[in-house]
């Protein structure tokens, strides 16, 4: 099949969507610089590139959220201009965005149909029965485990993801854009998504699939387009294209070692958690972390991994169980305490939980340990800046000055800033929750290197992750969680992907 697609790709007639010489600039930054993109009827086309490469902007141009400064958009060969999302919807284009964009207070039905509900010609009354029916059908097709009346806010991220897809389907879109759809999903959920995506393709939809995960791309796409620094690098059929070549095209340099090996002697136990329980989230979780060790906690979304970490960090309060540091039980009433004790946490959602985006780097870096930068409550700003300079340079943050706003950095660098926040204090244990989520390849390796350095310096590290390769590539031991309980403890050297999955997936495997 890929072969004939290849032939067709040369043939302009089959191009359902084509963008030529698109340029979009924002004050102070060029987001798209004379880029090209084309989509063939009925293909799944992967669009990859580091953060800041211009992918998300391209989508917003296609969906009409932005109007390009110059360049033309051809829909089935005819030039079009979209003056807003409504236009593109009418043209049969639907987008599923990176940060799920739902209405938490409204029902699933409304989330799917809002803006294009079926209304009675005269009374303009919304035909609820009809909508609910169609919603039910759509959810059926995506075999969802929730009803059309459910309030969106009560759904898990994965479930909301499905609603987003249902939304796209409801418009009978011919072109569906998926921006990092798998980012918040576990492997199993991703599998479901792949299935759905393919069935869409088979039903004649053309799909633009954006992702950081190489797995996604090789699994689904037939062609791939690479952007770098707001410019078009190239488009190739995936067949026979090596992942290293693509990575080079993305980052513009060769990345020799993906999971840097390291030699660290694992020291004595620092953190031990005994029978930690929180009603409704997790139960009887016990484990320990040693100096220089990287402990991976994995499992499906909603298995309680993040919840356990947040309980240890003191964001939430466990109902029972004890946490001991260096053998001494500690009382944690809030993050302030845990930081004082030397437990640091890199949260899962860096934009909401990790950073003050409109703040300068140094103010972000010193926030958790502000006390140590004050004399009698008096801030020593110069020292803050000095320390920040030192840390950010050590972590090779790509920024021009400690006065840069955190919001202006790329995902990877933002992640490094959060690490810097932890290093500004004297930590013993560092918890990293999905440290590479939504981070481009270049930054990933950097973060892995940092993790190793930290381990080498004798920090105990807990890494929560859904991505098998990094779990297997980075950790010393693997804790698999299932439905709020510890499902398995595996030694990385012997563990296999299958073992982990079977332990993680409910029903299968022994707990």
């Amino acid at each position, binding site marked *: 099949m890929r072969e004939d697609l290849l032939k067709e790709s040369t043939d302009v007639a089959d191009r359902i969507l084509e963008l030529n010489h698109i340029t979009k600039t924002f004050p102070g930054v060029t987001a798209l610089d004379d880029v090209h993109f084309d989509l063939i009827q009925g293909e799944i086309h992967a669009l990859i590139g580091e953060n800041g490469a211009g992918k998300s902007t391209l989508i917003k141009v296609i969906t009409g*959220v932005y109007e390009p400064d110059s360049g033309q958009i051809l829909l089935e060969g005819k030039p079009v201009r979209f003056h807003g999302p409504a236009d593109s919807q009418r043209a049969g284009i639907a987008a599923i965005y990176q940060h799920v964009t739902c209405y938490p207070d409204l029902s699933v039905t409304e989330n799917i149909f809002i803006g294009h509900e079926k209304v009675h010609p005269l009374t303009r009354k919304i035909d609820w029965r009809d909508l609910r029916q169609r919603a039910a059908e759509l959810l059926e097709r995506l075999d969802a485990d929730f009803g059309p009346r459910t309030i969106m806010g009560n759904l898990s991220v994965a479930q909301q993801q499905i609603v987003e897809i249902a939304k796209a389907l409801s418009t009978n879109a011919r072109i569906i854009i998926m921006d990092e759809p798998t980012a918040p999903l576990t492997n199993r959920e991703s599998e479901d998504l792949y299935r759905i995506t393919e069935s869409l393709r088979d039903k004649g939809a053309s799909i633009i699939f954006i992702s950081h995960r190489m797995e996604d791309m090789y699994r689904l796409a037939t062609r791939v387009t690479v952007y770098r620094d707001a410019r078009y690098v190239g488009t190739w059929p995936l067949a026979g294209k090596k992942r290293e070549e693509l990575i080079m095209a993305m980052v513009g340099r060769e990345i020799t070692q993906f999971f840097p090996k390291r030699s660290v002697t694992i020291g004595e136990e620092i953190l031990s958690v005994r029978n930690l329980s929180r009603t409704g989230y997790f139960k009887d979780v016990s484990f320990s972390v040693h100096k220089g060790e990287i402990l991976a906690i994995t499992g499906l979304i909603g298995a309680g991994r993040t919840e356990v970490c947040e309980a240890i960090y003191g964001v939430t309060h466990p109902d029972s169980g004890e946490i001991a540091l260096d053998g001494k039980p500690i009382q944690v009433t809030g993050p302030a305490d845990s930081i004082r004790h030397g437990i640091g946490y890199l949260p899962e959602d860096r934009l909401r939980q990790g950073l003050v985006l409109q703040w300068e780097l140094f103010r972000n870096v010193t926030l958790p340990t502000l006390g140590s930068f004050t004399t009698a409550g008096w801030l020593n700003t110069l020292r803050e800046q000095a320390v920040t300079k030192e840390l950010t340079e050590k972590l090779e943050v790509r920024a021009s*000055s400690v006065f840069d706003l955190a919001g202006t950095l790329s995902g990877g660098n933002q992640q490094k800033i959060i690490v810097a926040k932890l290093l500004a204090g004297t930590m013993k244990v560092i918890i990293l929750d999905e440290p590479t989520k939504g981070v481009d390849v270049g930054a990933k390796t950097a973060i892995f290197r940092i993790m190793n350095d930290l381990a080498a310096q004798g920090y105990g590290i807990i890494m929560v992750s859904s991505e098998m390769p990094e779990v297997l590539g980075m950790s010393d031991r693997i804790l698999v969680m299932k439905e709020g309980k510890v499902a398995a403890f595996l030694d990385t050297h012997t563990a296999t992907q299958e073992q982990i999955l079977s332990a993680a997936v409910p029903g299968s495997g022994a707990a």
Partner: protein
Amino acid sequence: MIDRTIRLDRSWSWRSFFFQWEWLLVLIFIAINILNSFLSPYYLDVDTFVSMPMTFLDKAFIVLPMTMVIILGNIDISVGSTVALSAVVMAVSFNAGLPMPLALVLCLVVGSVCGLINGLLMTRFRELSSVIVTLSTMIIYRGIAYIILENQASGKFPTWYSTLGWGSVGGIPIMVIAFAVCAVVFGLLLHRTSFGRRIYAMGSNLTASRYSGVKTGSIIIIVSVLTGLMAGVTALFLSSRMGSTRPNVAQGYELDVIAMVVLGGVSTAGGKGRIGGPLLAIFIIGFLNYGLGLVNIQAQDLLIVVGLLLIVSVLVLNVGFLDRKKRPVSPTRGEKEIQEEDL
């Protein structure tokens, strides 16, 4: 490869220096003084400048903590009632035989307690917005004041007490001195201490602050108590100026105060604004009121003028060149931030 050295200075431009809200306020302030002195021959007068500040500075004490409250992204509309309640309690307890100095202390205590209650309600019931909490306590506090004093006025304070609101030291009104001190203290608190930094953090991103170990609860409570305390201070000066007090004093103070803070360029979305703005705003509104009063502008016209001033200034702030968001913040500004702005 790009070099990894990170500079310790920020990109600096005259533009970013002059396009600051405070500059506009300074201009307005000077304009108002010139206008007034043209309008009324009595404006350019020593006595006027001694007595003028005393007519509006009582509220101004609340402006200081209210700035913190609004930077936190909250709002407190119970301050007027707090003033009334603490003033009433002070007067009643004094007339019940409590020595005046103690009565003054009690006044401050009552104010702080009112603030504390607000703070506790806000932290124990985080689901509730500060508007709701303070809306109901606003009604309750004044209600209590009515229960205590019914339709009586209470006063008969010792004569020395009236000097608090009327007297001056070396030609400078005591009120002005007191306010200057408070202003400096609050300014330093907000801009030079970890306490202030944490307030800004919470206003900018509450969740991130919690994850970064900011004790959000205690910050909210402290700020609320400060607000109550300053309301108590206002009560002291107000009752001193009125020589007596009633349950219905300080009605609608909350809105005057909020207006001043906002005119001062503090965004009610939280996280933005500095103490300097509100300070200037206090004097702008105060001088404007008094100056126009000197030429006997009718009260209703004053309403319109102040309202317009508020709207127009905020319009300039949002639409005009002053809008910071429209300027590139740094050369390395990337796609992420654009997303943040547009989504």
